[in-house]
């Protein structure tokens, strides 16, 4: 259903129209002879020239085309593909130093090309672009990438090519297009990218998508992004990372189902560079070819034109109704089902969980949350507590686990079994300052009932010997903003968090050679407990709905965490922990000034 071009709700939840070939073709037909628009005026220096681009095989091994161009006056070109029939189309070109960039669609088709030529070396990169190549989302732009060269009469073909590699991995840039669109663009992977819309959307949420990174040389690169799982819009640009300039194309349908088909110039700012984890001499890059597995069909063909690894969680995760959630929770609710800790033999994300603390046993406490409930606790033992809300009703018994992250600061979690939305409280209490914070997870959220929601509660802790903090509270922080932390859960299972906005966590999975690979992201929050101690949450949105929480200690580079998840197997609260590494921090704080801070309940 078409709405605003850039929706107010998160892209995960937008009901993207299933455009068909006819609708896509009609939209292209309106603009194909005009070519892409350009807010700052296209370059016309190709007029009157001819160019034959000879392509090698594509990234998937498909034969590359030979494209013979004749650039007419104005914005028209004639193209002959592989010596076939000549076709007229509108185009737009831009120059970036000695790079020439041009793009066009082809009449009566759903496809076109974007081409980057290095005029000094005559080496070229060609992107063949088409719609309706992915049957489940025909609005998504597909691309195949060919390396090649511009044929020079009487000269040998150049031996060099532009190359996929990892040289941009770990970099970040701010870009401002001549359209006024501003984005933060993180390149934290060899095959994925993460970006934040600063002007077209509310800059709360960043998104992740498959990308290409191709080196031209001398600080010049080509980048592409396809907004898979969302609008399907394709962006490609050539950039000069020293001059901080870009020229590129944006092609695809926005949320209003309007075709965006324009070339742009842009200027940038460097945001920094985080660590890479491959062996020092390794420069291997993408693209990552698809493999059978969750998110892809078993018969996926890595040799099909345009094929590459795309994480499509929204297609594969099992969404549940409120009634299904209720039945599943009644059938099975597991809260710290197994007491794990050092030496317990726990695997997966619990292998590095430290032994739960027994120091809350015997204590009583009351937590008064601002604009939230009053929670009374009796910690009966190391694993069992009793709670009562707002001073009324029956005391309920719940299983809990607690971890003491630093002396007198505890993380604990429990399920509130009697609540309609199967709530969980994941709480940090500081017995030295009297402050308490809670990530209040709940189910039955508006889009999918088994996807967790989370309220952030701040309050004060009352217990024997604990001082009254007065009006002091823990608070949202920007200390983590732009940071990248690696989380090694167990051998072979290491991810990296990128805190791309104050309310976004993106996670990137490392390949066996420690290149950063597939990526996804969700909303979250970052709260400061003490210097170097942060309480974070993220929701694995449109993915599996898990609420992940961690109490991260930057001084020990260890964390204690609790996951809250509901699926067909029931509701669970489980420990997670990892050995941490600090990959670096992007300098992005200034892009988030003059914004509302956090989202309190």
């Amino acid at each position, binding site marked *: 259903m078409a709405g605003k071009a850039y929706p107010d709700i998160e892209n995960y939840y937008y009901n993207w129209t299933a455009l068909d070939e006819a609708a896509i073709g009609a939209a292209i037909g309106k603009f194909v002879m005009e070519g892409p628009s350009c807010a700052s005026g296209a370059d016309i220096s190709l007029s009157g020239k001819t160019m034959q681009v000879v392509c090698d095989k594509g990234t998937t091994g498909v034969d590359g085309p030979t494209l013979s161009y004749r650039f007419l006056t104005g914005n028209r070109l004639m193209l002959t593909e592989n010596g076939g029939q000549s076709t007229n189309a509108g185009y737009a070109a831009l120059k970036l130093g000695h790079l020439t960039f041009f793009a066009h669609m082809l009449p009566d088709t759903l496809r076109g090309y974007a081409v980057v030529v290095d005029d000094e070396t005559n080496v070229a990169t060609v992107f063949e672009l088409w719609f309706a190549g992915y049957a489940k989302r025909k609005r998504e732009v597909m691309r195949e990438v060919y390396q090649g060269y511009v044929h020079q009469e009487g000269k040998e073909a150049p031996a060099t090519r532009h190359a996929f590699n990892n040289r941009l991995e770990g970099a970040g840039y701010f870009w401002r297009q001549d359209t006024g669109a501003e984005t933060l663009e993180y390149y934290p992977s060899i095959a994925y990218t993460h970006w934040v819309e600063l002007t077209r959307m509310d800059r709360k949420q960043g998104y992740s998508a498959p990308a290409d990174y191709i080196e031209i040389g001398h600080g010049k690169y080509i980048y592409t992004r396809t907004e898979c799982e969302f609008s399907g819009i394709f962006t490609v640009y050539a950039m000069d990372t020293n001059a901080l300039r870009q020229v590129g194309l944006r092609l695809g349908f926005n949320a209003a189902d309007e075709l965006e088909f324009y070339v742009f110039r842009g200027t940038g700012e460097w945001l920094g560079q985080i660590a890479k984890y491959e062996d020092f001499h390794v420069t291997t890059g993408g693209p990552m070819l698809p493999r059978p597995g969750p998110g892809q069909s078993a018969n996926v063909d890595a040799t099909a034109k345009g094929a590459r690894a795309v*994480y499509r969680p929204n297609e594969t995760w099992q969404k549940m109704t409120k009634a299904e959630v209720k039945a599943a929770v009644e059938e099975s609710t597991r809260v710290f089902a197994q007491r794990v800790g050092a030496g317990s033999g726990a695997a997966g994300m619990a292998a590095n969980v430290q032994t739960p603390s027994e120091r809350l046993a015997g204590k009583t406490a009351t937590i008064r949350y601002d604009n939230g409930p009053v929670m009374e606790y009796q910690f009966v033992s190391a694993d069992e507590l009793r709670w009562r809300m707002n001073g009324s009703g029956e005391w309920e018994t719940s299983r809990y686990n607690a971890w003491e992250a630093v002396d007198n600061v505890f993380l604990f979690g429990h399920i509130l079994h009697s609540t309609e939305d199967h709530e969980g409280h994941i709480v940090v209490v500081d017995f030295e300052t009297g402050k308490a914070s809670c990530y209040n997870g709940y189910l039955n959220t508006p889009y999918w009932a088994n996807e967790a929601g989370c309220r952030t509660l701040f309050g004060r802790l009352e217990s024997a010997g604990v001082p009254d903090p007065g009006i002091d509270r823990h608070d949202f922080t920007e200390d983590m903003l732009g940071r990248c932390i690696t989380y090694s*859960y167990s*051998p*072979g*299972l290491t991810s990296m968090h990128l805190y791309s906005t104050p309310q976004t966590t993106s996670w990137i*999975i490392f390949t066996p050679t420690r290149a950063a690979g597939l990526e996804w992201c969700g909303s979250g929050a970052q709260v400061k407990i003490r210097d170097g101690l942060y309480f974070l949450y993220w929701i694995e949105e449109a993915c599996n709905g898990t609420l992940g929480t961690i109490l991260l200690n930057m001084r020990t580079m260890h964390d204690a965490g609790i996951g809250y998840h509901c699926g067909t197997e029931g509701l669970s609260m489980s420990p997670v922990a990892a050995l941490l590494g600090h990959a670096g921090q992007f300098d992005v704080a200034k892009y988030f000034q003059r914004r509302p801070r956090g989202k309190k309940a």
Partner: protein
Amino acid sequence: MSKTMTTSRRSFLKSGAIVAAPVVAVAAPAVAFAADDSKAKLLRLEDERAIEALGRNFVRNFNASGTKGTSALFADGKAPKLAKNASRLALDPAAEPELLEIAADGARARSRYAVTVESEHALEGEGTLVQMARLQGNTATRVSEQRVLVAEYVKLEDRWAIADLRLA
């Protein structure tokens, strides 16, 4: 009193050289004695080489075909399971065994080799991270650790065979 002789290739060769030197320098009775001793040393050297070859064959066969591929090297034709998920063993080709003992009667022996054991652990679970890891080809994790391959041998009629073998 120990009934075994502890040696290694280097110490054996060293003592062999010391014993060999008098062979050409002493009188006949001594030569006769030395000859007997040399024969024993030679036999021991042959045993030692056979045992070392057996160890190398075990590692080669294990890496090629897993535990089952090593059965023929065992006295009872049955290979014990080495370690859960162990997929590959690596001996340092230049390294000597930590220990190679041949019993005084020459019928039994034991050895200890430093070995690198690679284990393969399938990524389990259905969490997001695991799904993503599998999707990009991380189907299993290989872990390397330094262990000691402890073996006991028995001399059969025509050859040495492994009587028992384990990782310590």
